[in-house]
């Protein structure tokens, strides 16, 4: 039997749905359909889109590689300052991205605390490079996969890992064969959210990596720039981002993300 919903709930839900959908619908309404091809080539859509996908995937990969161990330490480690570490990990979610960008600049910029040494000793410069865009994007989006994985680890029944140890599994073997597969659903959901956040990243990237077409100009930056010279082109770029995002979320379905 289907649940009967109170009218108030239905009305408020409709309001919420309209609010979310309205800008998307408006984008379609106002898109310069008659000069679509021209607008696309004019604003360098394909370059920005490819860069956006590369940067967001790289940021997601790094976030998973570093964030999952971090989640494990937060969930299982017992050491002083653990709650402080968790607060620090969550900070990029709370912080305005532009502040994160400034922080990265004074840390990893050419004359930054660590960046100076990177540049002088190793010849590595992150600002105004694609690598810099990846760094800025990772900084902002990694907390999502850390938090999701940590929640999964906390919800995991410790008996399974204990059993695996009693079956002769070394700590690494147990992590690989038992812990990781058992938190896979939460990890995957977190990774998808991280990727989604990375795809939309703007503030930290433009502050730290700059806005160079072909190197650091991802889709959100391209939209921002097009806004000032070609409002129609900005709409087209925005629509592309909407279509890509929705396609990916629908393709992954509720299976991975829990977003049904």
């Amino acid at each position, binding site marked *: 039997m289907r649940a009967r919903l109170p009218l108030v709930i239905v009305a408020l839900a409709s309001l919420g749905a309209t609010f979310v959908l309205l800008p998307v619908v408006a984008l379609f309404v106002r898109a310069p359909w008659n000069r679509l091809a021209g607008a696309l080539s004019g604003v360098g859509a394909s370059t920005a889109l490819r860069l956006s996908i590369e940067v967001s995937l790289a940021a997601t990969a790094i976030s998973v590689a570093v964030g999952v161990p971090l989640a494990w330490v937060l969930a299982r480690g017992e050491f002083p300052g653990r709650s402080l570490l968790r607060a620090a990990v969550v900070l990029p979610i709370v912080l305005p991205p532009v502040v994160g960008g400034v922080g990265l600049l004074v840390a990893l910029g050419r004359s930054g605390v660590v960046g100076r040494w990177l540049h002088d000793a190793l010849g590595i410069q992150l600002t105004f490079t694609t690598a810099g865009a990846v760094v800025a994007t990772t900084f902002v989006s990694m907390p999502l996969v850390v938090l999701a994985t940590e929640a999964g680890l906390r919800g995991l029944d410790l*008996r*399974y890992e*204990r*059993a695996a*140890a009693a079956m*002769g*599994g*070394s700590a690494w*073997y147990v992590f690989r064969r038992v812990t990781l597969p*058992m938190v896979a659903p939460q990890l995957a959901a977190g990774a998808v959210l991280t990727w989604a956040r990375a795809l939309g990243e703007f503030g930290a990237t433009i502050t730290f990596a700059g806005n160079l077409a072909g190197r650091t100009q991802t889709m959100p930056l391209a939209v921002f720039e097009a806004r000032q010279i070609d409002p129609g082109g900005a709409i087209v770029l925005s629509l592309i981002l909407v279509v890509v995002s929705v396609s990916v979320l629908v393709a992954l379905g509720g299976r991975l993300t829990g977003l049904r």
Partner: protein
Amino acid sequence: MVLEAEIEVRRGDVTVAAAFSAGDRETVGLLGPNGAGKTTIVETIAGLVPAASGRILLDDEPIHDLPPERRPIGIAFQDGVLFPHLSVMENVAFPVRARGARSRAARERAFELLEWLAPGIDPGAKPGTLSGGERQRVALARALAGTPRVLILDEPLSAVDVSARAELRALLRRTLRGFAGPRLLVTHDPVEAMTLADRVVVLESGRITQTGTPDEIRDAPRTRYAADLVGMNLFAGRLTPLEAGAGALETADGVVTVPWPEGRAVGPIDDVLATLAPADVALHAVRPEGSARNVVHGVVDEVAILGDRARVRLNGSPRLVAEITTGSVARMAIRSGGAVWASFKAVEIHLMVERGPTDTL
């Protein structure tokens, strides 16, 4: 192979302290009420719970400093604790793979064990689709897969349906007997302990209150708990129909009239177990005339006083233990060496019908 454990473990406010050993090819039953510390003890032996102090020796070699994965112990956990993301076959292969064997060798070992212990179960099934009894069979196979030197079974029947219990008990007995090394069986079920263990360690509130063979504990339980739960009369043998609703259980030392098991066709049944609480046995100075179907005449072997109760061991056909008040002992002048009549009703007898072979390997 001999396992010796002398350990003290703190669990919250409770301290569990136990010293016992298990010999080669000996099944030691750790019997006690829930919360007595049984699981804590075996998990300490397996290295999953740190001991506050003590030592664990295997053939005089200390193993208490080894991490759990390096202790040669196979353990079937309560409720199985099978990995939900792995198939039945992968679960059983896990200990073999974890110890570095190749995938192919591990699979062969797993199939071999599953064929023996869980023939009806699809090796590709996920544990979530199995019944309690099936999960326990897989857990048993997994415990044996890593060719351990010590086998531990933690409450192997607690999550199993009553209907599947008898068959699984028979399988456990075969498996335990077939395992060459010390075996520990954790249970809160006295019948399980009495029928599967060679020696029983009774554990109450974190302390060992008694150690002995099942017969020794049955005949002279030292605590109220042991008397109530372990000190049962146990009859085993072949059941043949006697009359409508009743059967004759032929034990090694006498025949007992019992109710016919519900739902079983009328015909001889092998390997039937029956229990009778000592408090349900009445003693009489002269031959009783009444409704009780079972009347036994015998000589009193021993009178053990436990608080205000006395346990009277009667050497008759069959041998019996009766529990009566100390007042009755005095009134009837019951003493060892004296003759006495005992009676008990068929309906007081609790039957457990085993299926299949029990003692063949």
